[in-house]
C-alpha cells in the first residue's frame, strides 16, 4: 500500500475493528435468505404486474422529493452541529467522564435540547460522549431515569451493563444490577430497543411496558406495567414455581410451563395496529397479542397452512406471552412440516426449554437439547443448548456425569453465560 493510501493509526484501528467484527453472516440470516430466494419466482410475477402501476406514481413522487430536498441539501452544506450544551446538576463530570454525585444527592445531566438523564443514588455512571445529536451514557451499576426530547437525527445511547438501549424520543427508567446481573427497563412514553446478551437481537419495548432480563438465568420478561402481580412474581427470583408460572423467556431461553389462566391472559394495553401486519413484522414491533389473537381464532388451520416464518413468529409471540400450549403446537408444527430446516432444528431447542420449565422434567428437555445439538451443530442456540444440557445432565445423573458436558462447554464457549456454572462443576471434583 502506498503512503497516499495509508490511514492514520487511529483510522487504521477503526478499519481493523470493522474488518474483525462486521460482515459475518449468521446461520439464521443464511436460512432466512434461503427461504426468501425460494419464493423468488412468485415475487417476480407480482412485481411485473405492479411495475406499470407504480411508474405514474413514481414520477409525481420524484417531483415532490426534489422540491423537499432543496432546503435540506442547503442545510447539509454546512458542518455538523456543535456538541449539545450540558449542565451537571448536583454533581460533576470527573476524569474519564465519570458522573460524580455531590454528597448523597442524585446527579442529573441536563442537555441543551431539553433531554434530562437523572441517575439514581449510588449509581456508577459514565458520560462517554456528547455530540450535536445526543450523548452516550453508560451505567455500570444502578439506575437512571431518562427523558429524551425527540429531535431530527437525535442519537442517544444508554448502556446498562452489557445491554445497549437505543433511544430517539422517549421517557423511561433503566437499571442494571451488577451483582444480580439483572436489567430492568420501565417505559413511560415512546419506544426503545434493547439489545445484549440473551435477547437474541433487539427487543422493542413500548410505552406502558417493562422489560426484565436476568442474565444469570438467561431469562427475559416483557410485561405490562400495570400488572402488579406479574411484577411481584418476577421479583420472586428464587421461587422456581412462581417463576415458572409467569416468566416468559426469549429465544435464548424459551418460555415455560402452562401458567394459571390469570397469568396466561395478560391483558395488553399496547395499542393494537389497526392495519394488518405480517407476523414477523408484528413480532419485531412487539405486537405479540395481535399475532395470538389472529392465530387462536383458528389455530388448527394456522398450524396446517402458515409458512415457516409465520410459525416461528407465532411460537415466539406465544412464548413471550406465556401461551405455552400454542407455542408448543407451533413448534411441533414447524418440526413436522418443515423437517430438516434450520427453524425446525431451532424448534427442538425451544421445545426443550418448554419441557424443562413446564414441569415435564429434565428428561424430555435433555432429549430435545441433544436433538437440537445433533441437528444444528453450528446453530444460533448451541451455546444455550449446551449450557442447558449441562444443567439437565447434572439434575438427572449428578455432577460427575455433567463434568464431561461442562468441559465441552468451556472448550467451546469459555466466556459463555454458563461458563461460571461449568467451572463450578469442574471445580467440585
Amino acid at each position: 500500500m502506498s503512503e497516499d493510501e495509508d490511514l492514520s493509526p487511529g483510522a487504521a484501528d477503526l478499519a481493523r475493528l470493522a474488518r474483525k467484527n462486521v460482515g459475518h453472516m449468521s446461520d439464521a440470516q443464511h436460512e432466512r435468505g434461503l427461504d426468501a430466494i425460494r419464493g423468488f419466482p412468485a415475487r417476480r410475477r407480482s412485481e411485473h404486474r405492479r411495475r406499470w402501476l407504480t411508474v405514474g406514481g413514481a414520477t409525481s413522487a420524484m417531483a415532490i422529493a426534489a422540491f423537499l430536498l432543496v432546503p435540506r441539501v442547503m442545510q447539509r452544506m454546512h458542518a455538523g452541529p456543535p456538541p449539545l450544551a450540558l449542565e451537571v446538576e448536583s454533581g460533576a463530570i470527573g476524569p474519564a467522564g465519570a458522573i460524580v454525585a455531590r454528597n448523597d444527592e442524585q446527579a442529573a445531566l441536563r442537555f441543551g435540547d431539553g433531554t434530562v438523564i437523572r441517575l439514581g443514588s449510588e449509581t456508577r455512571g459514565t458520560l462517554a460522549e456528547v455530540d450535536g445529536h445526543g450523548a452516550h451514557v453508560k451505567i455500570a451499576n444502578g439506575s437512571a431515569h431518562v427523558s429524551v426530547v425527540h429531535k431530527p437525527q437525535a442519537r442517544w445511547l444508554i448502556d446498562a451493563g452489557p445491554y445497549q438501549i437505543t433511544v430517539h424520543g422517549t421517557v423511561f427508567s433503566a437499571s442494571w444490577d451488577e451483582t444480580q446481573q439483572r436489567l430492568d427497563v420501565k417505559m413511560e412514553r415512546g419506544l426503545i430497543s434493547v439489545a445484549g446478551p440473551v435477547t437474541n437481537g433487539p427487543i422493542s419495548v413500548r410505552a406502558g411496558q417493562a422489560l426484565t432480563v436476568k442474565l444469570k438465568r438467561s431469562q427475559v420478561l416483557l410485561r405490562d406495567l400495570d400488572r402488579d402481580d406479574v411484577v411481584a412474581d418476577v421479583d420472586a427470583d428464587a421461587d422456581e414455581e412462581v417463576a415458572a408460572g409467569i416468566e416468559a423467556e426469549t429465544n435464548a431461553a424459551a418460555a415455560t410451563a402452562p401458567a394459571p389462566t390469570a397469568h396466561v391472559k395478560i391483558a395488553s394495553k399496547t395499542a393494537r395496529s389497526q392495519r394488518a401486519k405480517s407476523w414477523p413484522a408484528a413480532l419485531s414491533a412487539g405486537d405479540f397479542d395481535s399475532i395470538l389473537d389472529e392465530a387462536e381464532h383458528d389455530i388448527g388451520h394456522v398450524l396446517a397452512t402458515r409458512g415457516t416464518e409465520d410459525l416461528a413468529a407465532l411460537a415466539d409471540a406465544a412464548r413471550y406471552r406465556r401461551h405455552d400450549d400454542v407455542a408448543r403446537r407451533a413448534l411441533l408444527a414447524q418440526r413436522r412440516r418443515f423437517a430438516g430446516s434450520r427453524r425446525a432444528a431451532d424448534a427442538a431447542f425451544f421445545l426443550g426449554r418448554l419441557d424443562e420449565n413446564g414441569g415435564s422434567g429434565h428428561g424430555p428437555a435433555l432429549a430435545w437439547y441433544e436433538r437440537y445439538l445433533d441437528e444444528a451443530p453450528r446453530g444460533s442456540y448451541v451455546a444455550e443448548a449446551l449450557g442447558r444440557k449441562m444443567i439437565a445432565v447434572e439434575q438427572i445423573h449428578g455432577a460427575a456425569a455433567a463434568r464431561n458436558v461442562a468441559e465441552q462447554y468451556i472448550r467451546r464457549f469459555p466466556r459463555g453465560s454458563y461458563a461460571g456454572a461449568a467451572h463450578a462443576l469442574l471445580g467440585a471434583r
Partner: protein
Amino acid sequence: MAADVRLHRMRLVASTADASEAASDLELAHALIDGAPNAPVLAWERYAPLVHRIVSRAIGPDVEVEDVTQEIFYRLFSRIGTLRKPEALRSFVISFAIRIVKWELRRRRARRWLTLSETGDVPDEQQMVMDAESRYSLRRLYSLLDRLSTRERLVLVLRHVEGMTLEEIAEAMELSLATVKRGLRRATLRVSQLVDSDDPKRRPTGTAVKRRV
C-alpha cells in the same frame, strides 16, 4: 431439461474437492441463465456470505443489511441475462452488489434529509456480540463514513476493510484505475483527519460542557 442436466452435472462437479471454482461458476451461470429451478438456491449458497460481507462492511452494522443482501440476489436473478461472460460470474456478482449498495447508500442519504431519524425508521439496529467500547467505535467509524461521498466511502471500505486490490475495485465499480486511486487518496486523507480530530475521549470534558457547582 438441458438446464436440469447441466445442474446435475454441476452438483457432481461441485462434490469433488478439486473441482475448480471457475468451472463451477460457468455451470452455475448457465444454469441461472437457463432458469434451472435450483440455480438461485445454489447461487445463494455460494455467494451469500461474500455479498453479505460486502454489504454490511459498506453500510455498517444495520438491521437492513439482510434485506439489502436478499434484494441484491433478487435483482441479480432478474438481470442475469445481461451477464456477458458466464465464466466471470463472481466478478459479476460483486459488481452487481456494489452497484446496489451504492444506490442504497444514496437512498439513505436522501432519507436522512427527509425524515426525522438517522435511518428514517424506528431504531431497531442489529446488534453484534461485542463489548460496548467496540460497538461505540464502530458506530463512530460509520458516522464518519457518512460524511464521505458514496464513491469515496465505497472505495475506502473495499480497500481498507474488505482488502480488495485497486484493480479489483476499479473493475467492480466500473471506474478507471486513476479514478479509484484519486478517490482512495481523498477518502483516506479525509477519514484520517476526521478520526484524529474527533477523539471521543475529549468530548465529555470539552468546552461545551458546563458544570453547576
